[in-house]
């Protein structure tokens, strides 16, 4: 009896269910092959898992946001200078992916400069440039119409503007990272840091002994080291390898700063770390770094200015 039932079920399967199965498989194949984007999305997502979990231990290199540097300089009493930012119209020169990514970083840094030093007139223009580049880099969701409305509403509030700029940069970084676009992110960070070093030096001006702003610029050697290692990690990408070569002279100029023995601070009940040496920047170091920062910046932004 049981065999009979089985036989009956098999007949039913072959006659009715099998065509359904074939149709479902066909339908799935059609869905998969037509939905090019969804297939791509899965691949990218899988890649990000591999990046996050497979190789152990994987090294990450964190670089502070450009806004942190400007905020610190402002605390030291540095004032903004005009005509330093990467011109808005330069965006028309950024036709390939490498230049778009680098200059998304450059314009982010300019935007941090505007919002930190209260240069309201330029904020919207720089946001619009970032939006255009974000769209072209495939991360349009990080600056939408809602973001632009928030900016317009907060133009007179530099704290809010800084917060929005931070959010945009953070969202752009996360978006690129989780989509397996580490190489693009490396280019964005390279553009951002080289622009912020250039803007800082130009804003601080000539060398003075024992100037905390100049010491803080010397200390940018450390984020630059992390950036360089991050570029090296992604140097399999030709665009990143080229950018690493462009930034190398700046890193080498920072590496020439000598280290002096420094008194070690002690505070009861607190952990004090930071070694017993500090960077001791000379006038020659500073002038060399200043000149190289300008030429690196001009190369990355396709700017023609010779000096400021």
């Amino acid at each position, binding site marked *: 009896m049981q065999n009979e039932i089985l036989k009956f079920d098999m007949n039913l399967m072959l006659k009715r269910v099998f065509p*359904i199965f074939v149709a479902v498989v066909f339908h799935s194949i059609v869905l998969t092959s037509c939905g090019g984007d969804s297939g791509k999305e899965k691949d990218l997502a899988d890649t990000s898992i591999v990046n996050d979990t497979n190789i152990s231990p994987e090294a990450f*290199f964190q670089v502070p946001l450009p806004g942190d540097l400007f905020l610190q300089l402002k605390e030291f009493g540095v004032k903004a200078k005009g005509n330093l930012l990467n011109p808005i119209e330069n965006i028309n020169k950024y036709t390939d992916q490498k230049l778009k990514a680098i200059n998304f970083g450059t314009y982010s840094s300019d935007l941090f400069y505007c919002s930190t030093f209260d240069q309201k007139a330029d904020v919207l223009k720089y946001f619009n440039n970032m939006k255009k580049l974000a769209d072209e880099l495939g991360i349009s969701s990080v600056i939408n119409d809602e973001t632009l409305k928030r900016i317009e509403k907060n133009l007179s509030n530099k704290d809010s503007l800084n917060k929005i700029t931070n959010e945009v940069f953070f969202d752009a970084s996360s978006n690129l990272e*989780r989509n397996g676009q580490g190489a693009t992110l490396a280019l964005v960070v390279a553009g951002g840091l080289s622009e912020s070093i250039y803007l800082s030096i130009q804003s601080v001006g000539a060398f003075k002994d024992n100037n905390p702003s100049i010491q803080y610029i010397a200390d940018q050697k*450390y984020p630059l080291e992390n950036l360089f*290692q991050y570029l090296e990690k992604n140097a399999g990408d030709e665009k990143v390898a080229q950018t690493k070569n462009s930034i190398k002279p700046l890193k080498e100029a920072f590496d020439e700063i000598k280290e002096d023995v420094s008194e070690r601070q002690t505070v009861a009940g*607190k952990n004090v*770390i*930071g070694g017993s040496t500090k960077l001791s920047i000379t006038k020659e170091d500073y002038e060399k770094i200043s000149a190289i920062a300008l030429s690196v910046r001009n190369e990355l932004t396709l700017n023609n200015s010779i000096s400021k």
Partner: protein
Amino acid sequence: MSRILILITFFASLLLTNESKAQKGSTPIEKTYYCTDFHKKMCKFEKKDLEFKYNSQSRSALFRPGQVSVFSFTSFKGYDYRLTFCGEENLTKGAPIAFKVTDAKTNTVLFDSETAENSPKEFEFICNNSLNLKVEMTLPEDESSEKASYGCVGFLLQSRRNLQTGFK
């Protein structure tokens, strides 16, 4: 009859597609998305100290039990820093996340949570001179579960200008 079969086929395929999407929702793929802000939302420091602000070198990522991760960040002279680690319960099962802080240049170990009292999940320090620090983080192993589990881990970095205390 054949029309009914076509309709059944269509709805069955829709069901299958949705089911596969639902299964995907519980995989690590989607978790990478919500890990992004994990440190901002979940790494709360219990002490209500003043003036510590969020530092942009914080980050979150998706991890599996027992995984080791190394990252480097810059600490600047004149600042106090606080590092806090937090992980999803399904990943850590309440066990502490071990971390070691070393000088990135000399590899000198400056702090090791495994040798410190009570396996702290945070570390606070004053930065004497600017330097790059390397943090090696090790997640607890999970031998209880046969199924591979994933979860978010957050590294929250906070900083403030050195507080000048006492009479000068």
